[in-house]
Structures are given as structure tokens and as C-alpha cells.
């Protein structure tokens, strides 16, 4: 029994990271139908910039804040320099642009920083906390709380604020949104900034546990994407549940079968779910007007 609990706790920790990446996917997808494969690089940048700012002598909270703001700026630059000029191109082309951007960011990080693996200290020490025979790192609690807080803030943003609803309106019909006075370019820029900031926050929270280097982004992007698809692309609730489920699935497979199979098992389950529910767990049924 403590064994199950232990796997569950580590699954939820990893799942919370996937959920944060998936939430980042969700925001940009909602505003533009683009799946931003550079999302994992935002997580990597969050960790890397924090490490180097911290190593340069800045206190950790300040270093983390700088990392989040800098990454949000990089997100805005990605939109302004790569996505906005290609506006009007098919969505597939835009997605390929984000893949290119992710390769570029990885390469640039290697040059600007280095190729080493880095870590900075956990926020509340490394003393594991005992829960019913299982242990959890204080940093894991930070990760889980971070994912829940971001989810709650996004929920408020999209349901309560006018600008949040402007994002949803832009997603629904870009031209109609412009007609009712929404600056859709601003909405896109805001979405990229928010997505990048959330990605960076995930990187800041998780680096003390999983470490970071220039190439951790790709795997995170794939897992986050899988989580978003599992939950239903475009639905914040789906992103949260999809991320947690994926993390738990991986941890259970690694614990009870073999850690070599953890990725495979997770993807098999996702495939099975998508066969039965192509829209994901929380996705809307889409019907085409004929």
C-alpha cells in the first residue's frame, strides 16, 4: 500500500509539470489553432535562465522572476518575428514554424549558456516529508501547488475577464472578433506571453527535482502535447486532468512493470482513449456545418 501511494505521489508531481506544459499549449491553441511545439523550450529556458541568474549571485526568487519575464519576452518575440508575419498561412505551416523555433531556441541556448546539466537548490529544503509510509519532496508540493494555482488563475481569466473572453472570441472566429472591436494581434501576443511565462514557471519549479539542460524541452513538449490531447485540446480542465493522468500512468508503469516501458505504456493508453473519444476526455464534439 505505501508502494502504491509512493508511485501516486511521484506520478502527480510529474503530472503537474505535464499539466503546466499542456496549459501552455491550450492558451496558444485557443487563440490561434496553432500547436506551439516550442512550448517545451519555454520550460527549459525557465530553468536555465534561473540557474545562470542565480549563479551570477542573484537571490533565487529574483532569478526566477527574471527567468519568467525573459521567457515571456521570448514568447512575444516568437509571435512577432515568426508567427505574425506568416499570418494567413495554413495552420500546419505555423506549427512547422514553431518546430523550427524550438530547434533555434535549443541551439541558441547551447551557445549562450552551455551544454551542462544544471540544478539550483529546492525552495524549502530537500528533507522528504513522510505521508502514510510514502515520501514526498517539499519541492514536489511546490510543483503541484503551482499547477493548481495557474489553473485557477486561467479559469478566472477566461471566464471572468473581458480580455479573457476576447481570447476565446478570437479563437472562435478571428474576423468576427475584429468586427466587434477586438485587437486580435494583441490577443495573440498576450497568449504567447502568458504561455511562455507559464512554461518558464514550470521550469523554475521542477528544475530542483529533475535538473535542466539545453535539451530537456523536446521531451516535455511531447509529453505536454500528449497530455493536452488526452484531456481534449483547447480545454484548460482537460490539460490539467490529462497532465495528471499521464504522470500517474507513467509512474505506475515504471513502478509495477519497468521504467523502460513507462513512455510506451502511457502512449498506448492515450491511443486507446483517443480511439474511443477522438476529442479527448473533455473536448467538445465538433460538427461541421453542411
Amino acid at each position, binding site marked *: 500500500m505505501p508502494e502504491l501511494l509512493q508511485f501516486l505521489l511521484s506520478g502527480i508531481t510529474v503530472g503537474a509539470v505535464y499539466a503546466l506544459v499542456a496549459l501552455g499549449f491550450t492558451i496558444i491553441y485557443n487563440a490561434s489553432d496553432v500547436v506551439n511545439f516550442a512550448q517545451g523550450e519555454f520550460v527549459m529556458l525557465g530553468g536555465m535562465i534561473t540557474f545562470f541568474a542565480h549563479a551570477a549571485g542573484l537571490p533565487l526568487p529574483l532569478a526566477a522572476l527574471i527567468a519568467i519575464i525573459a521567457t515571456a519576452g521570448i514568447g512575444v518575440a516568437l509571435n512577432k518575428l515568426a508567427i505574425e508575419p506568416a499570418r494567413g498561412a495554413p495552420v500546419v505551416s505555423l506549427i512547422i514554424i514553431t518546430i523550427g523555433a524550438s530547434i533555434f531556441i535549443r541551439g541558441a541556448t547551447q551557445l549562450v549558456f552551455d551544454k551542462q546539466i544544471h540544478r539550483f537548490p529546492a525552495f524549502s529544503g530537500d528533507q522528504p516529508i513522510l505521508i502514510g509510509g510514502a515520501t514526498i519532496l517539499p519541492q514536489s508540493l511546490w510543483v503541484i501547488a503551482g499547477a493548481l494555482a495557474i489553473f485557477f488563475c486561467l479559469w478566472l481569466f477566461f471566464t471572468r475577464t473581458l480580455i479573457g473572453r476576447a481570447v476565446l*472570441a478570437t479563437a472562435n472566429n478571428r474576423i468576427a*472578433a475584429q468586427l466587434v472591436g477586438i485587437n486580435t494581434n494583441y490577443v495573440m501576443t498576450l497568449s504567447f506571453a502568458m504561455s511562455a511565462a507559464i512554461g518558464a514557471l514550470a521550469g523554475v519549479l521542477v528544475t530542483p527535482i529533475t535538473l535542466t539542460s539545453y535539451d530537456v524541452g523536446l521531451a516535455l513538449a511531447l509529453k505536454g502535447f500528449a497530455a493536452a490531447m488526452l484531456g481534449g485540446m483547447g480545454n484548460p480542465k482537460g490539460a490539467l486532468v490529462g497532465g495528471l493522468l499521464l504522470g500517474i500512468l507513467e509512474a505506475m508503469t515504471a513502478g509495477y512493470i519497468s521504467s523502460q516501458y513507462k513512455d510506451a505504456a502511457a502512449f498506448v493508453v492515450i491511443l486507446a482513449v483517443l480511439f474511443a473519444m477522438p476529442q479527448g476526455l473533455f473536448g467538445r464534439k465538433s460538427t461541421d456545418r453542411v
Partner: protein
Amino acid sequence: MSLLQIEGLGIDFGGVRAVNDVGFSLKPGEIVSVIGPNGAGKTTLFNMISGVYAPARGRVALDGEDVTRMPPHQLARRGLSRTFQNLQIFQSMSVLENAVAGHHLHERGSVFADLFSLPAARRRSRASEESARALLDRVGLGRAAEQEAGSLSYGALKRLEIARALALKPRVLLLDEPAAGCNAVETEEIDHLIAKVAAEGVSILLVEHDMKMVMRISNHIVVLDHGEKIAEGEPASIARDPRVIEAYLGAQAAEAQNADG
């Protein structure tokens, strides 16, 4: 003083002069119709005026201010609103939500009031909703308010688009074929609606193929053919204008030939 002033407007698509040197003006409360055979450039002209296309030549002035090449969302804030021939509706929102979306432009309040659902924010959204319902009643969609917009008929969506455009409280309203796909009764309803809106002082620019409707409600008609303005005047004089008759009959004759061949 004209509210909307168009001067020498033109655009080319890959060497083809889609619209060239078109100019006219609208006074407050006036209904001006743009007519012409298919492919004459009516919708292209609309797209340039409403900021969807950037014109290559010419000038658009709204109440004396140069608004040429201004994006649609800024035009909306200055009181120029439009509908589309091929519909631009928030398909997955409800009918009411579509109409409410048009009101958001006039909602101003702090993000904090929204986040914590303060009385001010609630009052504001209730006011928007009431006004949206009144507009839906006005276009005959009051009973469909809670339905998903995507489930409405084409004619009903046309009217929903008009309701949303009116929610912006426009000074100039561009309607691209508002009666297309509507039956005779619906056409007459739209007819009355347009006349009433104009009577309230809103200038209306109309593209419409229903000639009876155009002749009945227009104060002024502009005729386009091959992207150029070939005639302009009151409905009675336009109906007698030989160039207009030739443009239409010529087009019909060509169509008849195509059908035969």
C-alpha cells in the same frame, strides 16, 4: 457634411484591377446601395472600406478623419460596423452570446471588478445582456437566444449578424447582401429593420441583389461594373440609365450564352 467619404479607392490583385477610382459619400441617416453584376467588385469595395483589405489607392474618411487602411477593430471603435456576405458568426457560442459580444466594446471596467465579480461588473454585464436581448427581439431572434448559433438557418444567421453589428452602436453600417438566402417575408422584415435603423441617423451602405428591395429603400445608388463606377444617382434615374441596363443585360446575355454552350 458627409459622414463617410470615399475618394478614388482602388486595389489590384496580381495585375488585375479589381476596383479602380471609386468615390461617393454617405450623409447621416442615408441609405446608399452599391449594385452591379457578379464580379463587379462590390464586396472588394466593402472589404477596403471596412479595413479587411488595404486599398492601393484612394482615401476613406469617417466623419472627416482619415481611416484608410485602419484595421477592423479600430474602425469598430470609431463607429463603422459591417456584416459579411458569407457570415462571420461565433458559431459555437449561443445566439445571445454573439449579440453580447458586440456590446463588450462599450463595456469599460477594471479587471479586478471582473475577477471578483463586484456589483459594478455584474451590473455592467446585466445591462449588456438586456440590451442584447432587446436587439435580438428587434431582428426577430428573441426566442432563439439560448440556442447555439451554429444551429440557426442561414437567414436567421444573417439577422444575428445585423444584431451584433447594431450592438456596436455604429454610425455607419455596411451590410453585404443582408437579404440573401431569406424568403420574401424575411426580406421584408430586413427591409423594415434597415429603414428604421437609418431613420435613427445611422448611415447604411448596402450591397444587395434583390433589385426590388434596393429600389424601394435606397436614397442613392452607386453602380459598379468591372471595378469602376459607371453610374450614380437616385433609384428612378438609375433604373432608366442606359449604361446600367447594358451592364446588366450584357452580363445576362453572356450568362445565357454560357448556359447554351
